[in-house]
């Protein structure tokens, strides 16, 4: 396949950026999108130019590091895939592909396609945990039976990889899908239930501090989420948030 790439080039957080055009030839359909970017970078280095900086690590869709906005969609055209699992067979010969970084005030660009997502870490630090020390002297793992349905539902929420596609997709740059996935996971389990009202208040507070927008129920985040995190989580978080606000001291 032959592909024309238009890739975002931006030297640093405070520099102006622009699209740069590169022609790619002999692209194999079995290549992953990032492998295609590797080939481009290899060529740029050989030509004495600077390669594009992009985030990636596990390349099997689980670490949440890769983060490209491809042809106007987070992680490109596929559903339930990250960019590293997107393969070039999803594109047509002769196609022009636009590649941009996540765009959100809460995710400032570091360089080219790389952004700073530490705001997500700070939201988790605000309360995305169960306050239990790691002594190992907790009760036996089987002492509290958890209905399979609840455990499965908690698992589904817990599969969020924290990539930020939801934020990049949302017209309000809202992080509600991310935050609600963690809130849901922990409030669905008896171990996390105890602190659930404190947790939701603190996490939502931090989300606002970081500059993420609010949710207006468009649902684009759910469509673009590579792990299929459901909007139901947001509904559950809103419920938790409301009741916590009403009952908080």
């Amino acid at each position, binding site marked *: 396949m032959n592909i024309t790439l238009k890739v975002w080039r931006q030297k*640093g957080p405070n520099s102006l950026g622009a699209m740069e055009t590169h022609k790619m030839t002999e692209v194999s359909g*079995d*290549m992953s999108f990032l*492998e*295609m970017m*590797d*080939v481009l970078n290899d060529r*740029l*280095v*050989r030509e004495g*130019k*600077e*390669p594009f*900086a992009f985030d*990636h*690590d*596990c*390349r*099997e*869709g*689980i*670490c949440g*590091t890769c983060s490209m906005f491809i042809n106007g969609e987070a992680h490109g055209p596929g559903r*339930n895939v990250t960019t590293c*699992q997107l*393969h070039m067979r999803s594109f047509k010969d002769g196609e022009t592909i636009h590649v941009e970084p996540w765009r959100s005030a809460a995710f400032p660009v*570091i*360089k080219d396609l790389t952004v700073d*997502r*530490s705001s997500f*870490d700070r939201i*988790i*630090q605000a309360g*995305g*945990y*169960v*306050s*239990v*020390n*790691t*002594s190992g002297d*907790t*009760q036996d*793992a*089987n002492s509290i*039976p958890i*209905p*399979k349905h609840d*455990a*499965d539902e*908690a*698992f589904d929420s*817990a*599969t969020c*990889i924290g990539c930020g596609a939801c934020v990049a997709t949302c017209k309000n740059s809202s992080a509600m899908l991310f935050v609600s996935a963690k809130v849901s*996971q*922990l409030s669905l*389990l008896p*171990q*996390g239930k105890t602190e659930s009202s404190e947790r939701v208040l603190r996490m939502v507070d931090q989300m606002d501090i970081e500059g993420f927008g609010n949710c207006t129920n468009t649902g684009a985040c759910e469509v673009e989420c590579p792990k299929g995190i459901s909007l139901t989580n947001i509904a559950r978080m809103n419920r938790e948030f409301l009741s916590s606000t009403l009952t908080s001291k």
Partner: protein
Amino acid sequence: MLDSKIPEGPLAEKWSKHKDNIRLVNPANKRHIDIIVVGTGLAGASAAASLAEMGYNVKSLCFQDSPRRAHSIAAQGGINASKNYQNDGDSVYRLFYDTVKGGDYRSREANVHRLAEVSGSIIDQCVAQGVPFAREYGGLLDNRSFGGVQVSRTFYAKGQTGQQLLLGAYSALSRQISKGKVEMLNRHEMMDVVKIDGKARGIIARNLITGEIERHSAHAVVLCTGGYGNAFYLSTNAMGSNASAVWRAHKKGSFFANPCFTQIHPTCIPVSGHYQSKLTLMSESLRNDGRIWVPKSKSDVEAIRNGSKKAIDLKEDERDYYLERRYPAFGNLVPRDVASRAAKERCDAGYGVNKTGQAVYLDFASAFERYGKTEVLTQGIENPTHEQIINLGREVVKSKYGNLFDMYKQITDDNPYETPMMIYPAVHYTMGGLWVDYNLMTTVPGLFAAGEANFSDHGANRLGASALMQGLADGYFVLPYTIGDYLADDIRTGKIPTNSPEFDEAEKQVKDEISALINNNGDTPVDDFHRRLGLIMWNKCGMARNEKHLKEAIVEIQELRKEFYAKVRVSGSADDFNPELEKATRLADFLELGEAMCLDALTRSESCGGHFRDESQTEDGEALRDDENFTFVSAWEYTGAPSEAKLHKEPLVYDNIELKQRSYK
């Protein structure tokens, strides 16, 4: 010289006695002690969180943009613990025994027993943290079985167990960050260890965003930086997984143990082209339900390769389920090293089923039928059609391994619900690592290593679902206790200054190295050299090794290293976010470590576990150990170049287990 500090007394009492007798640091003093933890995988995140909870001041570093991304996250199948919830006769002793046997009798008895002892607490701890393990309808935890064992002791969360455990450890770490007990440094890479008066007293790190070279001091440094499988270039490791921290520690005096012990995982998606950047694992848990086979006749192989026949066209008696044939007792669930070699044997004999001849089938058809039949009964469906049964079975398989099947389809464009998967072995894990004593301290006082970065628990072959167990055991339950014994001497030391000549010197070396790479006027990208190193390693220090190949490999790697320094081009600048520079410094270390691996493989002329020497095999092609001459840990001391490393031997003593030729027949 090598004192493993294994406590006296009966095996089952060693750990509890040791815990009772080691020195403690009182809570007021802990506040005056700094610890650096490098890496935030299962071992690193759990260690940093636990040490901070205890009251130490912790600095934690990761090269990723967040501690949640460490490659432990990609572990799929599960975590072992001897809970015996399934009432199938499991016990601490049995987990201990299976692990020592699985490691082909090249691990330390005392360490492995301790690992088995704390395994149950890990599950308790994780459940308390809100890790959503798979459960049965009664609400209790579910288990499955893994290779090399005959019980079901593996706890899991679909095919994403590593993710869930890591997010649990990350949440514990996040809690300590929010309390100010851990200072978290994302996108920081450790570049060197700083030693003062023979003790590890800090590190030099590079801020990967600004390029700044930073000094960090501490009373102890803990390396939890994972394995070195990327020496092979293609592996199941993440792109950033690297050996620089352990290799640089080695060059500063930590002995490196058993570097040649690498695990080649039997079930990975085969290589598809020269641009390939990594290989993807298909979890070992699939061997619970998948059957591995190749065609019996070469004409069928030919027909499959040229597309005139498909896997599903072959009848049952035209298939060679070679693992079931060769190992009736364990069948498809033999340990990884055995399964990998068996696949290589069939493919080398010309029975590989893809175009490159390097693939075998992993087939779920009989699992669909078996589960389907059970479903039909539980759902009370009368006179079901064959299709109905298969579809119901597919649903069950989907609920167990759905994400793995999706991943396979995404990568290969083949639907594994319709046609068998094609798989081939790939580099996965490294059992070797920094030599540590029973307290997890390396030969440099104050420098500790935990998780995959150390060597002690898996011998020559790691059993499935044991890496997660070891990472969390080290980080939650072992290191936090044992490090106190060392730090008890430091309660009056006070803060370690970073303006000493030792810090000056270490920083200068790092800066010089970086500047040499950046200003090298070469023309070849870093990856080019990495690929070539990978090929040498895979061809000559891979699934089967021999004296001739290893000697060649050592020379080839030395030459490649010279060429790298002469011709590499590292674009961009040193004072900027520069992924090319990160790759270059990491590869510089792999180019030395690769040679150390070959040298170790050459020295160990026996076969054991994942280390298979062509010269040492039984009549039917199984690994043949040489217990008389090789029942020891090879601990290498760096003396100026990889080829000049000095070998020290730590004898392995088996008081509780009788050494036997491993048999899974």
